[in-house]
């Protein structure tokens, strides 16, 4: 009889641990999925920029430095993006990515501000198409980032709170970093602003 009770308690405990563990796994998969969506959109952003620079180069002859800086920032951001691989959520990697993308966003903003001075460029159909594509990409990145941060918040809450924090500690579920872009204000307004 006593043995049976002990056995039952053990089974209940194991079941409890399993439920908590599975919940953590579910939350981890959710933020990893959410990051995959950001990754797709960042890739799209990085692919668009060289084409954009190629298009505006002919018009913006006096902005060589800005254009070079844009390309450089783009290359750096792309490098960081590629390096992330399995380190999704790693606080250091996330903050690096956030800084690089933020810098790139700032430079793009400057590029579009400078384009105001080139009416021929602004009237070109090609440039307008780029404006639309880039506006859309900025918005997609912003929405995908929001989804990642929401999922990350839910995961972090579970990692920190009782009783799942015991399971998290035992099985190595670590807190993850949010993705914040340096030029936060510009990006958060992105859905409202067309580059006009």
């Amino acid at each position, binding site marked *: 009889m006593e043995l049976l009770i002990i056995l039952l308690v053990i089974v209940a405990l194991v079941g409890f641990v399993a439920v908590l563990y599975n919940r953590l796994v579910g939350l981890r998969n959710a933020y990893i999925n959410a990051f995959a969506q950001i990754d797709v959109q960042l890739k799209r952003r990085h692919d668009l920029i060289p084409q954009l620079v190629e298009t505006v180069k002919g018009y913006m002859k006096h902005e060589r430095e800005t254009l070079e800086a844009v390309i450089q920032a783009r290359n750096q951001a792309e490098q960081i993006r590629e390096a992330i691989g399995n380190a999704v959520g790693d606080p250091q990697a996330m903050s690096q990515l956030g800084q690089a993308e933020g810098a790139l966003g700032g430079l793009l903003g400057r590029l579009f501000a400078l384009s105001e001075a080139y009416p021929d460029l602004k*009237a070109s159909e090609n440039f307008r*198409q780029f404006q639309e*594509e880039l506006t*859309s990409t900025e*918005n*997609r990145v912003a929405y995908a980032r929001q*989804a990642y941060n929401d999922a990350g918040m839910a995961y972090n809450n579970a990692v920190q709170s009782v009783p799942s924090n015991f399971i998290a500690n035992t099985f190595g579920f670590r807190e993850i970093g949010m993705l914040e872009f340096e030029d936060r204000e510009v990006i958060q307004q992105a859905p409202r602003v067309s580059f*006009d």
Partner: protein
Amino acid sequence: MAAFDFRAQQERARHLSVVLVLAFIVMVAIISLLLGALIAAFLGGDPTAREIRLEPAPAIAIALGIMAVIVGVALFKIVSFGGDGARVATSLGAEEVTEDTQNPFKKRYLNVVEEMAIAAGLPRPRAFVVKHEQGINAFAAGGSPEKAAISVTHGALAKLNRQELTGVVAHEMAHIANHDTRLNMRLMGMVFGLVILYTSGHALLRSSIFMRRGRGNRGTVPILAIGLGLIVLGLLGVLGGRILQSAVSRRREYLADATGVQFTRNPTGLANALKKIGATTAGSHVDNSHAEEARHMFFAQATGSFAGLFSTHPPLHDRVRALDPQFNPATDPIYTKGDKRILRETRHELFGPWG
């Protein structure tokens, strides 16, 4: 900002759906019983007898038969759509927009749909445009997020800027996320089942008039009465269905506005889109003859009046005020803009001053 609780909303939509189906069944049962009694009285009895006697058994049997027909037609209509949003869109005269479009208005629209799908965390619905419609309107359809389709009118593309179009698409995306589209599909099927009664009454009346010409007067009176009964009760049923449908729809619109703002984190776009409906002469009107059947699916009132028991949407001003409490129709800069300026400004945004 806290994450929006879709689960609870979906749960509520499902609950509402059950209540609605029950109300519909009760209504159909009453109508069938009345019709059963009518038909049994006129066909079962001796036509030369002075008074009409009512036998309950045949009346109930006939009522059950009628009920089976109504429910069968409703189910057929629901199943024949198969939950496929694209089919509903096509039946309302919409054309799909594909990735290879060169039209900047459509390209932008497709981008906005993609953005809102990401914001809602749902697969991208297929995107359609209802050509030739000058009013500003949109609708979503589909039994599940995977089979959903979003359509906007030509007028919406021509008159709304990027931010406003985003607000409208976010509202439609919210209908999909809250499972309103599935509820709407069912409503459409149910009302169609009742329309059948009315239509068959019409057919019966016409044939009885034809018969009267051919033969004598005898035997046509019961058919005439049954035909009239079908028309009157069918009409009542359709009206009842419409009232049910409209009441539910009005509630879901406010919810979709709120959910849409959660997606965009920006109430201005949606508010301005609603203001432009009020500012333009075509408003949100949709001409398509099938629009009547699907009026509760649209972004704003597609047909009929803007207020009352049968309106599918809350009054425009109330919706704007929920988003922009300072709204004053007399002085609002967008609300007082004319058609021409609105069209010109949208073109300007896409093509520049020389476009």
